[in-house]
């Protein structure tokens, strides 16, 4: 159990090049599960490997339980890691795999066996203890990898995309199991994924990374409701938030000839900018009758309908501007089809407004 702190931690692979992780500041509270999420190449794995001691920390520091670990070798950091491809030892049985970290720490045989048995029970691996990893399914291998981390009873768990090799159904199941187990063991955990759904469902807090830089570090609801910039806004949520560059008008912005008023504080913060990036989540559109007056509703033409049963998503382009596309959530069993006209109005209370140049949230 420990607090993990990244303090301006950087990793520069090639001198002179852009850092893979750029002055990362992050505090993982004791017992929390923090998810690092971001697109591929954003530096998530690198950050995790810096914490694991598998990459050097070129600048700044990383602390585990108050101890600066910059010069501490991996094995002395009291961490356990689950790798993307599990990294099981192929020549060892499941039991030997799980006992390996204990053996390396000189624990005696009986205690090793005892701990492995407990972990195996918890993970439902008891009947596979004598098998080699080759004879296990993907899900079982994943659990062995988890088991090898658990038996250690480390201060911190590190997981690098541990679910990416599982099929969709297994992934959802295992996701819940990991979150539940982490809750029970109360071990601080840093979890890396590129999947924002995993991030939102598992994380006590979520750190969004892009280009090696921390974009926002917040709880999942906060991330969803108040994204700090246009990148986070577009990255979190599925389907993604509509991000539209709109010209200013007297009281707000205009979209497809319709005046969208902005709240006082926002328009104050927007100052004299003549263009703003407006973010509207698919569920924040109101579907109106197509007969409505075109000065109050935005007219659009449907391109694709995704019917999900309980709801549907309409992908449409604006009637008078075919280059602007929007995604609108509708009710299930919606009647519209390809080519049908629809009329929508954004919910004015749910707008996200960003600077069109920097992408920073206003205000």
């Amino acid at each position, binding site marked *: 159990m420990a607090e993990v702190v990244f303090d301006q931690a950087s990793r520069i692979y090639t001198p002179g090049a852009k850092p893979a992780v750029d002055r990362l500041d992050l505090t993982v509270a004791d017992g929390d599960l923090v998810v690092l999420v971001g697109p591929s190449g954003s530096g998530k794995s690198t950050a995790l490997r810096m914490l*694991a*001691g*598998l990459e050097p920390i070129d600048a700044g520091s990383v602390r585990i339980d108050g101890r600066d670990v910059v010069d501490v*070798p*991996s*094995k002395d950091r009291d*961490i*356990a*890691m689950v*790798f*993307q*491809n*599990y*990294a*099981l*030892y*192929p*020549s*060892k049985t499941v039991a030997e795999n799980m006992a*390996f*970290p204990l053996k*390396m*720490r000189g624990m005696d045989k009986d205690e090793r066996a005892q701990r492995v048995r407990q972990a195996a029970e918890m993970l439902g691996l008891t009947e596979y203890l004598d098998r080699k*990893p*080759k004879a296990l*399914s*993907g899900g079982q*291998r994943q659990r062995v990898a988890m088991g*090898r981390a658990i038996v*250690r009873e480390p201060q911190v768990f590190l997981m690098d995309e541990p679910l990416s*090799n599982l*099929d969709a159904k297994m992934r959802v199941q295992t996701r819940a199991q990991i979150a539940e187990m982490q809750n029970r063991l109360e071990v601080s955990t840093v979890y890396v994924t590129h999947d924002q759904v995993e991030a939102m469902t598992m994380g006590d807090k979520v750190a969004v990374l892009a280009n090696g830089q921390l974009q926002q570090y917040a709880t999942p609801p906060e991330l969803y409701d108040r994204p700090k910039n246009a990148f986070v806004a577009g990255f979190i949520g599925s389907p993604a938030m509509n991000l539209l560059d709109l010209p200013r008008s007297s009281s707000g912005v205009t979209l497809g000839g319709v005046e969208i008023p902005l709240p006082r504080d926002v328009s104050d913060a927007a100052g004299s900018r003549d263009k703003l990036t407006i973010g509207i989540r698919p569920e924040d559109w109101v579907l109106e009758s197509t007969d409505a007056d075109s000065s109050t509703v935005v007219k659009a033409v449907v391109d694709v309908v995704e019917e999900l049963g309980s709801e549907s998503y309409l992908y449409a382009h604006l009637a008078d501007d075919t280059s602007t596309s929007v995604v609108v959530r509708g009710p299930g069993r919606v009647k519209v089809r390809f080519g049908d006209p629809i009329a929508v109005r954004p919910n004015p209370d749910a707008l996200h407004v960003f600077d069109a140049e920097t992408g920073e949230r206003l205000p």
Partner: protein
Amino acid sequence: MTATLEERPAAPENAGGKPAIDKAEGWRRRGPLLPALIFTIIVTQIPFILTLYYSLQSWNLVRPGSQEFVWFSNYGDVFADSQFRTVALNTVIMTLGSVLIAVVLGLLLALLLNRQFAGRGIVRTLLITPFLITPVAAALLWKTVLLDPTLGLINFVLTPFGGSGTEWISQFPLASVMAALIWQWTPFMMLLLLAGLQSMPTDQLEAARVDGASAWSTFRELTLPHLRRFIELGVVLGTIYLVNIFDQVYMMTQGGPGVASANLPFYIYQRAFLGFDIGQSAAMGVVVVILTLIAANFALRLIFRSFSGEQEAA
């Protein structure tokens, strides 16, 4: 890595079993290989059958017209021949000794080359060269340049330590031949094992680091089991080549003194072409083939089983 790949649902092309190939199609595909097959049979199996036939004859080239059918008496003579037994033992020592020492040295060099250091490319090239030298040239090099009692480099180097008088080749004939063989085969083992080391998944090594394994534990518990197949391959290939080795023996010692450094191929050659005893040497050839087959099928398998068992228990 491979483990997880195997696990994924079968790719479509593997999905529905192998389509049955009809006979004509089978011929069309494999027919072109037939000439090669026939040629192989002619040059390997027919001589073998002739050898079998000769081995049942008493036939010495020095006494023309002496050829007669004697059943298995040649075989009896082979097993009664104490020199044959010495030579057989020499062969085992020479082959397995050279192969195993070459594997160990090759492994050490491969571990060295698997690290990053300045000039690694040049070092690797230099280490490979012994393997590229013609065996006869290599044997001459060892016999004259290195081991010659008066002109050899080894005695030259040893002079300050008072070891200059050694007649390496006559005092240690078997060891001298083996030294040349090991020198030549170590690079092969090194290359093979280096390929093995480089195919080791890095995430396993990283997992071991996080799990707290020392360098030695990592080597013993992970690297060595991973290299097992490469080591096996090296031992099998090396044994196949070295059991037949002739050049070094012929060039360096002529099997002597006596038969102290002779191996079976050389001894058979001596019997056939210096002693002209065709029947006897044919019988020896047959015995050697049978022994080699037994060795290949049982001894090697046994070695590997105990080897892998040891790994599992670790």
